[in-house]
């Protein structure tokens, strides 16, 4: 039993990993079929893995209510909203009464109505709140504490101006004529382009090459059974 709990998953990971890796270099039809079938299975597995997240979240809120943990009232809201949203989509309900009918195609019904008027505004607002905090942090916390932070802030400000229409306006607004050609005094747009396309691309490439190496390292660790975090705790 212990063999199936501990060694067996490692063997499975090793075999799957090596096979999927080696098949890449083999161009036959069977090798392609192998990958297609694996990918199809994986798709179904991904679906179930996503369900795991949903179930554990519901479980968490259910427990909160059951043991009357602080703030359990809010968990009721989550559960009720979940049930309504789920049922409207799973059951063949559609808007039958006048007034609601024309706003959505019959295919959608109340499910898409809730999506449009509740899910979308709340998710969209969640992160837009940060705009206020960024502005306040601009005053209160973004400081040029060191040379590095200064470089960062200067580049950031150039991008912020150069990547909106104001930057174009400044660039084309103030020009000086040298030898018949107009040169911009404050070429925000050009400097922004250069910053993004050259130094930024270089730094990102350096980082990416490193990240790819670490991705490969992790993949190798998983295949050879050295990295086992995916197995979870317990024996």
């Amino acid at each position, binding site marked *: 039993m212990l063999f199936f709990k501990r060694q067996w998953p490692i063997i499975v990971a090793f075999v799957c990993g090596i096979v999927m890796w080696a098949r890449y270099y083999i161009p036959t039809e069977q090798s392609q079929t192998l990958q*297609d079938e694996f990918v199809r299975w994986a*798709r179904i597995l991904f679906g179930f893995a996503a369900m795991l997240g949903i179930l554990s979240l519901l479980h968490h809120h259910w427990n909160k209510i059951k043991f009357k943990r602080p703030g359990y009232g809010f968990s009721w809201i989550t559960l009720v909203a979940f049930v309504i949203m789920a049922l409207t989509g799973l059951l063949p309900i559609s808007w039958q009464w006048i007034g609601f009918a024309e706003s959505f195609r019959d295919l959608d019904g109340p499910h898409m109505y809730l999506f*449009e008027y509740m*899910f979308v505004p709340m998710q969209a607002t969640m992160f837009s709140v940060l705009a206020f905090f960024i502005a306040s942090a601009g005053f209160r916390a973004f400081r040029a504490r060191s040379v590095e932070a200064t470089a960062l802030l200067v580049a950031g400000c150039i991008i*912020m101006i150069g990547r*909106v229409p104001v930057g174009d306006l400044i660039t084309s607004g103030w020009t000086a004529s040298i030898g018949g050609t107009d040169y911009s005094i404050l070429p925000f747009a050009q400097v922004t382009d250069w910053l993004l396309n050259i130094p930024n*691309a270089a730094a*990102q490439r350096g980082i990416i090459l490193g990240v790819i190496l670490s991705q490969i390292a992790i993949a190798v660790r998983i295949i050879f059974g050295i990295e086992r975090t995916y197995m979870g705790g317990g024996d």
Partner: protein
Amino acid sequence: MDFVNTILNLDRRVIYTIVGLLVAIPLIWPFSLPVIPTPETRGIYNAMDALPPGSHVMIAADFDPASKPELLPMLEALLAHCFIKDLKPHLLTLWPSGPGLAQQAIERQAEKYGKESGTDWCFLGFRYGTVAVILGMTSSITDTFVTDFYGKATSSMPIYERVSDIADMDYLVDIAAGATVEYWVVYAAEPEGVPMGASCTAVSATSYYPLLQAGQITGLSGGMKGTAEYEVLLREEYGQSFNIPTGDATKGMDAQSAVHVFIVLSIIIANICYFISLRREREERRKA
């Protein structure tokens, strides 16, 4: 309290009010700053525009409502571009909360340009698995998406008469709020040799410049500005003949500019005040 201390201890609510006003006022009374398209966005536009009519374009709408203002107008502009040029878009999403917005966008545009689902376009919907889905489509689209979003069998659609996998596509666009651009490049565009463009949220725009620089993607549209540029490019060329209204992203550019200027100024002013106060502190310490 003098100026320096006032700035350094400015109440949050003052700043919040200013930001709120700076966003609201340009939206009510726009001053219509000109949006000048950058070469990055042109890279996508030109590649799309050069495709002969009847070409197949795969558009992945990998975003959710959290980045709706940045990317939904881009999706609509791309779809409009496809329909204007008689290209056949294959729309899908790898994000579970993506289908809702994508559905609205494609139905709106298809209705406007009078295009048929199944012949002129196909909305494949969503499947779990990200990389698994992309890899599946490199071998067969109709096996990966057996049915489209509306539950119709894809294998019997006229649009899949001539194309079977990603390699048959003439162009790929990923509209991404996350890291999906990498997956599309690594598992689809690069191995299948299909040119690709990327439209992403501003947050991740910088990380795709190496891809652009190496020619792995033909163009890059970052955030609401990129979207506004695309809208402007489309309107410049087809606005009159197809009656395209000013896009939402273009309308938002005034407010965007105003707040940017405010934030840049506030960072500069606050830093100057910070250094003045630092020097004062040092002087006081020297005195003491």
